[in-house]
């Protein structure tokens, strides 16, 4: 049980529950027609959770199928549909959406001190677009299926696949507009809705990273939308844009696709960086080290991210000269990510670290993202990429970044803001065990894939009887996947249980810093009773005096223990900057 849960509320218990965004109305209509960013975030939480479950189901089937070199239950046609479903659902309906739409939607107005996002109805429209898109994608997968993988490479997707590519693409197209509307909303909110005193450099880093994400979303998403639409045209009207038989160029598709999809990688990971910065600062009880560097590295990543798409195409027959340029810029874009990792690590130094469950997720994020990011260098270096691309190495790499990064950060963020979102405290013991399960299960699942990839096991292979020597790694991976699945299902139960049995959360159960903790848990419909005025700096913690206070409390309980002494033997407080 966490220490904070021991003193559940700083405020005296209200005789009747105050009005908050959850209990203000209970009808289904009040949810489906809401303009409240917090309710929309909850709607998104359920819908992305649903799609994550479906994508995870597909992953389970894949892992089961790969335990034997010659497959277990599926035919190749089905297997290809399953892995495509996994990729498409996870990328377009989960990873791109999850943190911006749930945590971002919920927190950005709270963090900048606004009553709502700038355009609440647009926000609701975005959820409906997402649901419509998701439904169409699922419909396409049920009627006809799709077997192109999430990359839709032409001419396979445009001329050869006999599956229902067009319908799925229409769904993704709608989902893209959902992202765009969310992005516009965030940008305007961050620019124009900040509370008095909330300067740019008092913004929490989560807001910075969401801003960078939104910029990438609005600049990148239209390109993929129109590109996929061209694929549909090619399928429907045989318009030869990408098919070489009639003069088109299949590599053009890859250029346009990765022009969006590489920045999309940053759409997936930048929000995770934001969550991570919040968790590290608030649980180390210390201002994030190099706040400005971390903030600007988000912007740098967003900008440079548009210049490296060609590193997905080193061996695709693009010009070698262009490849060299892309490789160089790829190494440059690695630096801001490294800066972030070092800054998080340095933040821990001389902190007053509370090892509660969100912090465990944050710490495992650092480890997993470091591995994921560094293995990216193998793929950004042109020579080594030749052998590793299209193999399980790349699968392991992006799962380390996407699952080890984004999903871990999402789980950490969900645990951290859960009391704010629901007003309830969950069982921290279970959550800590779960963080451990996720970390172990994840590594067991994906680390063996690095080795399988280096051995030359190509990705998207249903049968691998041509190289049975990698079977041991596949079996390890499948075993790890079952652990990981457990770690992803458990939170549903203990978080769900907290809704019924959990202690009521105070406004600031973690003792954290930030505007979202200044209002009640859960917040009222318009977030703040009065528009807050920001007068202090961001992450304004003082680990020394905090330690001192805790020490004093302890001394009252256990008198006689020595007080706070520094190395020099003197007492130092408030000694910062």
């Amino acid at each position, binding site marked *: 049980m966490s220490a904070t849960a021991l003193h559940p509320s700083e405020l005296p218990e209200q005789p009747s529950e105050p009005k908050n965004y959850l209990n203000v109305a209970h009808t289904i209509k009040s949810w489906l027609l809401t*303009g409240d960013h917090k309710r929309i975030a909850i709607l998104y939480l359920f819908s992305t959770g649903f799609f994550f479950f479906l994508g995870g189901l597909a992953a389970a089937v894949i892992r089961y199928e790969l335990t034997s070199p010659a497959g277990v239950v599926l035919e190749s046609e089905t297997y290809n549909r399953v892995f495509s479903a996994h990729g498409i659902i996870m990328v377009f309906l989960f990873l791109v959406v999850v943190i911006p739409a749930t945590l971002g939607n919920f927190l950005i*107005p709270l963090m900048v001190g*606004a*009553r*709502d*996002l*700038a*355009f*609440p109805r647009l926000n609701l429209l975005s959820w409906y677009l997402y649901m419509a898109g998701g439904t169409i994608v699922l419909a396409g997968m049920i009627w006809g299926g799709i077997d192109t993988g999430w990359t839709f490479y032409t001419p396979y997707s445009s001329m050869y696949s006999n599956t229902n590519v067009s319908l799925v693409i229409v769904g993704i197209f709608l989902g893209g507009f959902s992202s*765009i509307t969310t*992005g*516009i*909303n965030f*940008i*305007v909110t961050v*620019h*124009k*809705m900040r509370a*008095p*005193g909330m300067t740019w450099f008092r913004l929490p880093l989560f807001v910075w990273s969401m801003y960078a994400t939104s910029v990438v979303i*609005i*600049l*990148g*998403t*239209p*390109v993929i*939308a*129109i*590109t996929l639409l*061209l694929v549909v*045209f090619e399928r429907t*009207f*045989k*318009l*030869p*844009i990408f098919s070489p038989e*009639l*003069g*088109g*160029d299949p590599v*053009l598709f890859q250029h*346009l696709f990765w*022009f969006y999809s590489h920045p999309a990688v940053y759409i997936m990971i930048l929000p995770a960086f934001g969550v991570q910065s919040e968790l590290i600062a608030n649980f180390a009880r210390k201002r994030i080290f190099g706040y400005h560097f971390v903030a600007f590295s988000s912007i740098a990543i967003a900008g440079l991210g548009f210049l490296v798409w060609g590193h997905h195409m080193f061996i695709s027959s693009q010009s070698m000269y262009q490849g060299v340029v892309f490789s160089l810029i790829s190494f440059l874009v690695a630096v801001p990510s490294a800066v972030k990792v070092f800054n998080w690590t340095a933040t821990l130094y001389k902190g007053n670290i509370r090892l509660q469950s969100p912090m465990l997720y944050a710490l495992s994020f650092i480890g997993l993202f470091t591995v994921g990011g560094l293995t990216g260098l193998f793929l950004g270096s042109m020579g080594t990429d030749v052998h590793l691309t299209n193999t399980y190495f790349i699968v392991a790499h992006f799962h380390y970044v996407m699952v080890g990064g984004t999903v871990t950060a999402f789980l950490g963020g969900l645990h951290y803001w859960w009391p704010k979102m629901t007003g309830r405290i969950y069982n921290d013991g279970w959550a800590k065990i779960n963080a451990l399960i996720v970390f172990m299960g994840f590594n067991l699942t994906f680390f063996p894939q690095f080795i399988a990839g280096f051995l030359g096991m190509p990705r998207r292979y249903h049968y691998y009887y041509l190289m049975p020597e990698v079977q041991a790694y596949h079996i390890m991976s499948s075993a790890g996947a079952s652990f990981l699945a457990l770690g992803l299902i458990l939170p549903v139960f203990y978080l769900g249980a907290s809704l019924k049995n959990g202690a009521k959360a105070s406004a600031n159960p973690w003792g954290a810093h930030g505007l979202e903790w200044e209002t009640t848990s859960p917040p009222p*419909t*318009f977030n*703040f*009773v*009065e*528009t807050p*005025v920001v*007068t202090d700096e961001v992450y304004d913690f003082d680990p020394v005096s905090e330690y001192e206070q805790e020490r004093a409390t302890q001394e009252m309980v256990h008198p006689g223990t020595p007080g706070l002494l520094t190395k020099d033997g003197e007492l130092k407080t408030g000694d910062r900057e």
Partner: protein
Amino acid sequence: MAAITHTSDHSHDDHHGPLHHQFESIEQQNESYIVGMWTFLVTEVMFFGALFLTYTLYRAMYQHDFFVAHEHLSIPMGAFNTIVLLISSFTMVLAVHFAQLKRARAVIANLWLTIALAGVFLVVKYFEYTSKFADNLYPGPSFTANKAVFEHNGHVPEIDLNHAQIFYGLYFGMTGLHAVHIIVGILVLAALARMWMKGNRLVTEDFVPTELVGLYWHFVDLVWIFLFPLMYLMPKPH
């Protein structure tokens, strides 16, 4: 620091007043709308951008075929449409101008003028499209069967019909997408004009909603400014 207190006394579903509950002041709201509109237009730039890029690439690859194919387009019609759109932009900007001066009748007149010009544009486009469809110049299996339509000054030029098909695919794709934007614009303009005629406070009290529609309309004009020379006025390869 003096706290600017603002008790949230707006009722939740009060969408009729000009100021929405999430904003502090009408200035903040207006600025938000304008930033939002520009952000949306940036999205639109990238949306058309991918098509312009595709066009540029194939144009560079198949210069000759594109040139021959483009000769089948009618320059007078394209030029006329350009003039129509430029004038509609002018009437739109006048509408915004009079909205700033709160001269409702002038605003309404200019909005309807803009709609009428957009209608003229679409009618001309309709005739252009039907003539191309009559010649089977839409992408599809029937396209490559009719080399004769490219007859020019009495002889059929040498042309790779597959490449001409790419040209017409892009022509219909880009002008079609543009026409969709025109149609959406007409609907928005009509709604705006109606609100002005009814004296809806949402638009009459402040010119910003009119300006937002204006920004959108100018963007549509902007796309056509590039489409016209690229599609209709291709220089002869020499």
